[in-house]
């Protein structure tokens, strides 16, 4: 395996309490901490481990978005990626468009493996990896919690509703990762300095000639239905009485 491509999406940090703007036009992102989607960080960690074990030559991180996404790409470079690609687009691009962009980079740079997060914690869509596999005509192994890389094959343990499914795929392939695959490394200060010298290529979305396909429009946003705080009971007897009251025990 020569080259691994890893997608890094810039998202609102998972510790931020996300709020809908009062006019319903979106969620509040002004002054909010932004980070790499946690699943993508795990994907990058996996790619770096493959490279460090001598099974890959180059790890490339890619993000689609505004210039701000450079921050997340720099963090990816500081973690250990060799180079970064920013595909610049002003408007938001749907999963199909992202998958098509990734495919054009796969063709251009002869990528052998794509590692992505299983979902992004902003739109929670869980689509891009599966779409990329479809367009590329290569295997997909989603929700990976363990992977063994054996030359031209990978044995992937997938977290599914029934338990664990062990799937073997031929490479090249798309693998989307789940939280339990690994724990991403912390970035050290010297690595941040080093990352500044690593190549970060910027491509305008228009120059790639990718058709993002028919987009799904976001019409409005609202806060979810609130649940009311209920009653506190003092002891087990009170709890049992409250449950009996509701016909639940």
């Amino acid at each position: 395996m020569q080259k691994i491509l890893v997608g890094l999406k810039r998202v609102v940090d998972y510790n931020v309490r996300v709020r809908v703007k009062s006019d319903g036009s979106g969620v509040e992102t002004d002054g909010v901490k932004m980070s790499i989607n946690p699943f993508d960080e795990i994907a990058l960690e996996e790619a770096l481990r493959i490279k460090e074990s001598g099974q890959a030559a180059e790890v490339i991180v890619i993000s689609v978005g505004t210039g701000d996404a450079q921050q997340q790409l720099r963090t990816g470079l500081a973690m250990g990626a060799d180079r970064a690609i920013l595909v610049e687009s002003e408007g938001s691009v749907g999963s199909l468009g992202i998958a098509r962009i990734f495919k054009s980079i796969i063709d251009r740079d002869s990528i052998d493996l794509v590692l992505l997060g299983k979902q992004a914690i902003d739109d929670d869509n869980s689509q891009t990896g599966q779409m990329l596999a479809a367009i590329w005509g290569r295997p997909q192994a989603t929700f990976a919690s363990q992977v063994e890389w054996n030359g031209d094959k990978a044995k992937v343990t997938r977290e599914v509703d029934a338990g664990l499914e062990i799937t073997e795929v031929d490479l090249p392939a798309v693998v989307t990762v789940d939280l339990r695959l690994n724990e991403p490394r912390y970035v050290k200060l010297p690595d941040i300095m080093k990352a500044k010298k690593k190549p970060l290529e910027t491509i305008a979305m228009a120059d790639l000639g990718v058709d993002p396909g028919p987009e799904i429009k976001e019409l409005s946003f609202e806060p979810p239905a609130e649940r009311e705080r209920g009653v506190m009971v003092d002891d087990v007897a009170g709890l049992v009485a409250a449950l009996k009251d509701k016909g639940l025990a």
Partner: protein
Amino acid sequence: MSKILIIAEHDGSILNSSTAKTVACAATIEGAEIDIAVLASTAGPVAAQAAELESVTRVLILERPENEQAIAAILAPQIAALAGGYSHIFGPSTTFGKDLMPHVAALLSVNQVSDIMAVESSHTFKRPIYAGSAVATVEAPGDSVVVGTVRIASYGAANGGNSAAIESADVSADLPSHTRILEVQSGVSDRPDLQTAAKVVAGGRALGSEEGFDLIYRLADKLAAGVGASRAAVDAGYVPNEMQIGQTGKIIAPDLYIAIGISGAIQHITGIKDAGTIVAINKDEEAPIFEIADIGLVSDLFNTLPELIEAL
């Protein structure tokens, strides 16, 4: 009029209840005509169950030996080949549907509407984003097929009693051999299934060990409840991954949910919001879980649970 194709989830013999819930969602689209596709090596038993679901017009059988297991790269080309004439193609937002449906969408050159929680009109839907911290209303383009997954916790199962026509569908599709399922490891349990149980008891990090979690099982057995867990409990190895509830685990909607030693992180809450009654037992009165609990008890679970198990 909307012509809707629903992809059945099954294990080769039993139709998963996620399918009946997906049908219930589709039936809320005005003028919906609903077909169910059963892709299997032997489709008979599953097709018969699908044909019983209310609102279903036809059950289409796609039988091939390759359909023995649910591999997205094998099923999706057949579904795409069947898609002509349908305005919508829906699957459940379970790991089966999440894996499969985006692959179908990409083959049909459209984006997907994930986790539909409400239908506003044939092309407008509500869906949760940011771990349920916001609800977005989205509109799919009117001139292309709508591919979507249904958030099954938002719907009750469609009723039975129907006898829809069962037909074979012939599609030609080239199927790849690059993906092979070697093994499925499922915890065997005779407890109620987490996703359909009327009552669920769940434990968090506070249980401290696999042995500690025994208290949760004992309480669940007293209540005939299913058992779930927070991510922290799964990560720590107290219980297997299929028990995780939340943004990245299962989304459930039981009548009764009891959270024990679970703090109530947003990523967990999003998986239980639709429960009828939420009970929380936690020794920290400031735990966020109490903000949404209908009944709360501040106490040490190791004292409380033995007493509760005894009292029930």
